[in-house]
């Protein structure tokens, strides 16, 4: 036996010498993470490696759809993913794409915000599959100086009217309006602006929303789900429909650049989407034990507070709130005051056929056909 293992070692050594590094690095334990771009702090991965000895390998995406396509194709090779709870993770649970979590390996679950846990209970009864990671809203990112220059100092900025009211949008089109390339988000915003149920599937409601978007189309520069971050920061855009933390990252980048671009984030008074991103382990994850270790690491209040301080998203860990920078805790864009929070709504699940119809309507709207 000893001889055998030795010969194996020699063989491995010889092979690793032949092929170089890859063979040697495969010997150490790895965990493959698939997360949104810019969604960890700079020291998150190195901190995990020094704590656990497991080497994290990170891939990033900028839309749930890309993540979803890989999951549905199967054998994605990822151990831990970070989808948005509704409608994505909910759908994945139904399709049986996740592995049940072992709660005994996850100390600190009790520190999570009971409100958020309660809202996840609907899609994940008994919390078998999902652990919340971050939450935020989808609102409006603004280049404050340019918007005020175009609309006047008195103009209300916390309204979808900046995008959907042709009178306002036409004045802002010159410095650039961008919408998320996401049918559900845009329709929810349009329906909220019209004062209708943002989750409505009613034909008339959808027709009214699509007329509204059509009317705004000439003033929209592009539809994209991440490009607006750098464009807002550089002053290339005036108004961006975007995720709270992304806009606030743009704000921080603009301040760093020091070119006088002032970015602001507003939650529209007509209502905006409140979303939660969760952690889940794909059913075919190669190393679920390491994925559990990584979730446990992120449940550490200091770790998650460090990430929030870096990415400008609120985390659901109540023990971490006191560890956040005061600037974050007081930012109404990150922790909205109760009267603003009352305007937020969550997205409901939809059938596949309804989603496809909505997306095809969206494709048509984008192409202005």
């Amino acid at each position, binding site marked *: 036996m000893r001889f055998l293992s030795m010969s194996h070692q020699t063989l491995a050594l010889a092979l690793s010498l032949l092929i170089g590094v890859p063979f040697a690095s495969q010997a150490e334990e790895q965990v493959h993470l698939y997360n949104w771009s810019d969604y960890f702090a700079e020291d998150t991965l190195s901190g995990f490696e020094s704590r656990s000895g497991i080497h994290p390998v990170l891939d990033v995406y900028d*839309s749930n*759809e*890309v993540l*979803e*396509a890989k*999951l*549905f*194709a*199967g054998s994605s090779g990822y151990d831990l993913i970070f989808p948005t709870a509704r409608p994505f993770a909910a*759908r994945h649970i*139904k*399709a*049986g*794409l996740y592995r049940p979590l072992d709660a005994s390996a996850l100390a600190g679950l009790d520190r999570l915000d009971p409100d958020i846990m309660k809202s996840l209970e609907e899609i994940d009864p008994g919390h078998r599959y999902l652990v919340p990671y971050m939450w935020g809203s989808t609102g409006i990112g603004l280049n404050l100086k340019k918007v005020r220059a175009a609309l006047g100092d008195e103009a209300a900025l916390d309204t979808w009217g900046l995008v959907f009211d042709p009178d306002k949008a036409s004045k802002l089109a010159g410095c*650039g309006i961008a919408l998320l390339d996401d*049918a559900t988000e845009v329709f929810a915003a349009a329906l909220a602006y019209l004062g209708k149920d943002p989750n409505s599937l009613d034909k008339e409601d959808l027709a009214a929303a699509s007329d509204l978007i059509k009317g705004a*189309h000439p003033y*929209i*520069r*592009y*539809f994209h789900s991440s490009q607006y971050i750098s464009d807002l920061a*550089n*002053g*290339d855009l005036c108004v961006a429909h975007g995720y709270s933390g992304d806009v606030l990252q743009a704000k921080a980048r603009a301040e760093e650049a020091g070119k006088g671009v002032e970015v602001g984030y507003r939650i529209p008074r007509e209502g905006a989407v409140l979303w939660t991103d969760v952690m889940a382990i794909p059913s075919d994850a190669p190393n679920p034990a390491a994925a559990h270790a990584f979730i446990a690491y992120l449940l550490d209040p200091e770790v998650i507070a460090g990430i929030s301080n870096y990415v400008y998203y609120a985390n659901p860990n109540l023990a971490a709130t006191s560890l956040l920078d005061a600037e974050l805790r007081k930012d109404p864009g990150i922790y909205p005051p109760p009267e603003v929070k009352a305007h937020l709504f969550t997205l409901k699940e939809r059938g*596949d056929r309804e*989603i*496809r119809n909505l*997306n*095809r309507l969206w*494709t*048509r709207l*984008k*192409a*202005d*056909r």
Partner: protein
Amino acid sequence: MNQTPNMQARQTSRLSRLVNIGVPYFWLGLFFLLPFVIVLQISLSEPALAQPPYRLLWEWVEEGLLQIQINLQNFMLIWEDDIYLYAFLNSLWVALVCTLICLLLGYPMAYAIATARERHRIPLLMLIILPFWTSFLIRVYAWIGILNTNGLLNHFLLWLGVIDTPLQILHTQTAVYIGVVYSYLPFMILPLYANLTRLDPTLLEAAADLGCRPLRAFMRVTLPLSMPGIVAGSMLVFIPVVGEFVIPDLLGSPGSLMVGKLMWTEFFSNKDWPLASALAIVLLGLLVIPFVLMQRLQQNLDEGRT
């Protein structure tokens, strides 16, 4: 045992011929026909909430009873909904315009390189090939930096005083044309160059001796003889541009809907693999037409020559 050496030799030559023909056929079967059959099969299936997200065409209902279900709805939807027709036409149009621009730019460049002095040719060709050493994606991203309202081009034009306010070029159809022509120009130049260097210069001398002016000689001699190069270059540009996804997505406007983007939407946003596959099949069908035309043209050229 009792074969004569002659027969043996004939047999081995037959074997080697079989291998010679078999290998390319095996290659085509494995890497073209098989994927095609898979895509075709998906295009005839129904989407489902499963992994992978479509229902297989066949199903063992009970022992010995195989049920095959073919779903033509995907193709019907493509036929009925004019957004797909629009996307196909727009893709073909973009590809056509870009091919023509590439030809107009590429022909003089290829001609110049082909007629340059021998020792200059390799460095000039290197200049064409050199950009390939950087990733295609990064080169397209670089164009964002150039065409932006805050970008290099606008700064330069403002500095020159040609314009007062920055031009909005990024996220327009113009940006798509610029990106595509830039990316695909080498594919036009290289086959043209290969063709033009092989032209017999004595033909032009003969034309000159017979009193033909250079322009006329070019039109009557060089251009017709470089037709195979033009066709090859145009195909190498046209066909991939029709299905181009990255350039219109990064540089284009939301209005410039192309099939590649539509397929992406169906595949990713809608998880509708069957419809995405059906689009791919229709696109393949459409692209067979220029191929057939090219083959006809090539045949005509060959016949005209003999």
